[in-house]
């Protein structure tokens, strides 16, 4: 039974339960609902919740756990000598999965399942499942076991879910009495659901941290810790023996972010000040949304802009005439485009902060004869400084984590150079290239991406916390 149909059945049962529960409650007091503790709908609601929620949760949990259990059991069936050199257990497992899917397909078409491993490849080819190599006997046995276990597991799940739904249904129906505090029960239930929804945020963070930490630990088992943190070369090789030093990547990341901030911070702050202090209402009403359009444009668009417009323009007008290089993807390209992307980010944050400075400070300054710009420089900016520093730090964290612009604009060569027209690379670029390549998952070349991800996560988290800390600690309290 497919998951969609199962869900529909459970929900239909629950909806029926709602109507029935309501009916029973009204029936028990012979239509005089004043004698009920709660409104009739609440009795129905308890039946609905008790039928649907536990059953659907069980289904979700089952779907998550079943593949793990099967994986473990089937994995043990594969003979170690059948894992070819250069391959890995996870690759063989994905083969097992494909063979099992193919066998199910053969069965669905009513054909006979091949008896021994030798003919499997050909049989699967006929139903459109192509395999790279011939199937080894232990792998084939594992695939058959996998298919059988999945099928049994699926059936068991359907039965368990339906039984639980019916049990909840019966339990809730049996509880209906005029004195039953249905509203309180269903409200408690709903509140539990709300808490569950809020916990998704915690689970997500937990998922991020655990997946990064686990795979990073994995990485450091196959690659020395010191080489990663202290080596100055980044040179991954397919056959192994790679140099995976993080410094060239960090250098590229920081250099590009620095250029981006050099563009975004002055432009962002000056436009925020102009909009908040000088601009007429009309100008503000036009310019502010236009600046925010820049914030709404996806980063892939900026990436393409860097690739087809900014990169060639910088190369032809600056890099080549100055003799600084002839690459259109460079630190400068990525930095400038990223700076443009960050302008609205800095300006809207600064705008809020400048607007939050009370009018009395301005009036005081004007009253002793300061010009508008003197007021801004000597009164408003110092008052708004912690907030603006916070905004800049947030922008920096954004710049460090930005991916598409650097993937398309910065190049792929990992080097440490001072020339801003050289192509360099960043942490995010390498995460993408190491994880989208064809290397085997358990090799250090792939796993390094998780270590890079963890570095990135820690970096941006640190910057965010620092920004929050500065804003909290140094914020001027008015009134």
């Amino acid at each position, binding site marked *: 039974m497919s998951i969609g149909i199962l869900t529909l059945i459970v929900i239909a049962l629950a909806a029926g339960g709602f109507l029935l529960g309501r009916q029973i409650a009204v029936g028990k007091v012979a239509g005089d609902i004043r004698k009920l503790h709660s409104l009739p709908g609440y009795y129905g609601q308890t039946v609905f919740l008790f039928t649907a929620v536990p059953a659907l949760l069980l289904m979700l949990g089952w779907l998550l756990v079943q593949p793990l259990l099967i994986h473990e059991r089937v994995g043990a069936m594969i003979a170690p000598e059948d894992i070819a050199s250069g391959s890995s257990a996870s690759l063989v497992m994905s083969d097992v999965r494909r063979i099992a899917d193919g066998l199910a397909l053969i069965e669905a078409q009513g054909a006979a399942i091949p008896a021994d491993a030798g003919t499997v490849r050909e049989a699967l080819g006929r139903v459109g499942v192509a395999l790279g190599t011939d199937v080894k006997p232990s792998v084939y046995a594992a695939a058959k076991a996998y298919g059988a276990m999945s099928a049994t597991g699926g059936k068991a799940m359907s039965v368990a879910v339906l039984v639980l739904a019916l049990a909840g249904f019966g339990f809730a129906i049996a509880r209906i009495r005029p004195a039953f505090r249905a509203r309180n029960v269903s409200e408690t239930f709903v509140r539990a659901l709300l808490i569950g929804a*809020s916990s*998704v*945020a915690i689970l997500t963070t937990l998922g991020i941290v655990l997946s*990064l930490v686990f795979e990073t630990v994995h990485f450091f088992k196959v690659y020395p810790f010191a080489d990663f943190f202290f080596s100055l070369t980044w040179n991954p090789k397919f056959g192994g023996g790679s140099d995976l030093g993080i410094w060239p990547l960090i250098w590229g990341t920081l250099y590009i972010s620095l250029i981006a901030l050099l563009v975004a911070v002055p432009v962002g702050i000056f436009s925020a000040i*102009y909009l908040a202090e000088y601009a007429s209402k009309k100008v503000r009403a036009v310019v502010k949304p236009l600046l925010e359009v820049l914030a709404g444009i996806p980063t892939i*668009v900026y990436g393409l802009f860097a690739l087809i417009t900014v990169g060639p323009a910088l190369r032809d007008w600056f890099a080549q005439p100055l003799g600084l290089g002839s690459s259109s993807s460079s630190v400068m390209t990525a930095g400038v485009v990223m700076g443009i992307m960050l302008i609205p980010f800095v300006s809207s944050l600064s705008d809020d902060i400048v607007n939050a400075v009370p009018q009395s400070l301005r009036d005081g300054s004007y009253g002793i004869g300061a010009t508008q710009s003197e007021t801004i420089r000597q009164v408003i900016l110092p008052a708004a400084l912690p907030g603006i520093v916070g905004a800049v730090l947030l922008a920096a964290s954004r710049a460090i984590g930005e991916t598409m612009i650097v993937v398309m604009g910065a190049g792929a060569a990992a080097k440490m150079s001072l020339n801003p027209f050289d192509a360099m690379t960043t942490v*995010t670029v390498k995460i993408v290239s190491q994880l989208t390549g064809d290397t085997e998952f358990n090799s250090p070349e792939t796993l390094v991406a998780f270590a890079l991800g963890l570095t990135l996560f820690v970096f941006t988290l640190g910057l*965010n916390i620092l920004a929050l800390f500065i804003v909290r600690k140094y914020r001027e309290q008015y009134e």
Partner: protein
Amino acid sequence: MTAEATNIPAPKRRSLYQLDARTRRRNASETRFRAYGVAAIAFGMIALAVLLWSILGQGLSAFTQTRIAMDVTLDAAVLDKSGKRDPVELAKATTLAYGKILDQALVKQATDKGLMPEGLSAKDAAGILSKEAPAQLRRMVLDNPALIGTTVQIEALANGRIDGLLKGRVTMESAKLDSNVSPAQLVLAQNLKDAGLLAKSFNFDFITAPDASEVRPEAAGLGVAILGSLYMMMIVLVLALPIGVAASIYLEEFAAKNWFTDLIEVNIANLAAVPSIVYGILGLAVFINFAGMPQSSPLVGGLVLTLMTLPTIIIATRASLKAVPPSIKDAALGIGASKTQTVFHHVLPLAMPGIMTGTIIGMAHALGETAPLLLIGMVAFVRDYPAAPPEGFLDPAAALPVQVYNFTRRADPAFLERASGAIIVLLVFLALMNVAAILLRRKFERRW
């Protein structure tokens, strides 16, 4: 003492109308400061204008495509050897056979009308057709076997280089250096164009057709990518809206001030600032490697984007819940409604416009997101449309922004035009979503 006193020069008498040096300096610095502000805003506006102009300038041409009009005789002896119009037999005629028919038709037409330039072989002349054209003709015939044996007038897709000639990307000079096209072929194309047989027309296939291989940019379309993005948006809407609203209601209306609430708050604030690529790593590690979900499926993409969008939706929803005045809650509680009834019957409906606006903006953000999708295998080359949901959620699919990235990585410059065209499609979707959000806000927003 007196001498010193007399040494102090008497203040100069001057008119208020005459500014002294210091005031002039201060005023100049004031003007300068204002000019910096204007310059900053001008920089932002110019950047926006150049950005849009460069994308539109490059991409609009992707919506037209060069086609060659010709009469093709569908020879029954070649296409249907059995003569029974049996679909299985018909399917045996490969694109090679159709390609030959098309080539002959083109050469015949060009020779008959005297358009063949001297020294161009028949094989090279046929090279101005797209490699995709025979496949399209084959599909047309298989859909309608009655056409066999007749002469049909079709508009065959021209090669990407010929398309480039009409769009100004390819010139005689560039063709001399190009191994894929010769100047003589361009002359033939020019002749056909002058005879009115080769022309650009609106390219509907760009929006509906699937991606095409590296050597046929003229046939590449966004169909699979648009469908994949649509599926992912469906998943994001179905998951992120209820979870986000439920979480916000809890935090805003029910949560007691304790360590658990603080923990959730801190988590949401941090998740909003986590780089999007980290969500991609999460998706790869948890959904694909741990839970065994299929790579490059809209399901995984949708889940990753949901987690990424949740903080945005929660922040927007909480702001609009907060904006509902306490008097309404007090009134509901006062006439005996329970806390839950108050929230669900009164506060939530009043906050709904704000929630919808926040959700749409969050989804627009998710629609344009690329980096996490790269990591979960969406870069794969997918030519088959995913099935209808719910099974289609597990089929491999592309996504609009990732398709843009894929186009940019191919060697043929014609793909850059396609990439910009895809961006235009993406921006149109984003603009529609944002306009919807603004209209919703205008129509339903209440000021208390």
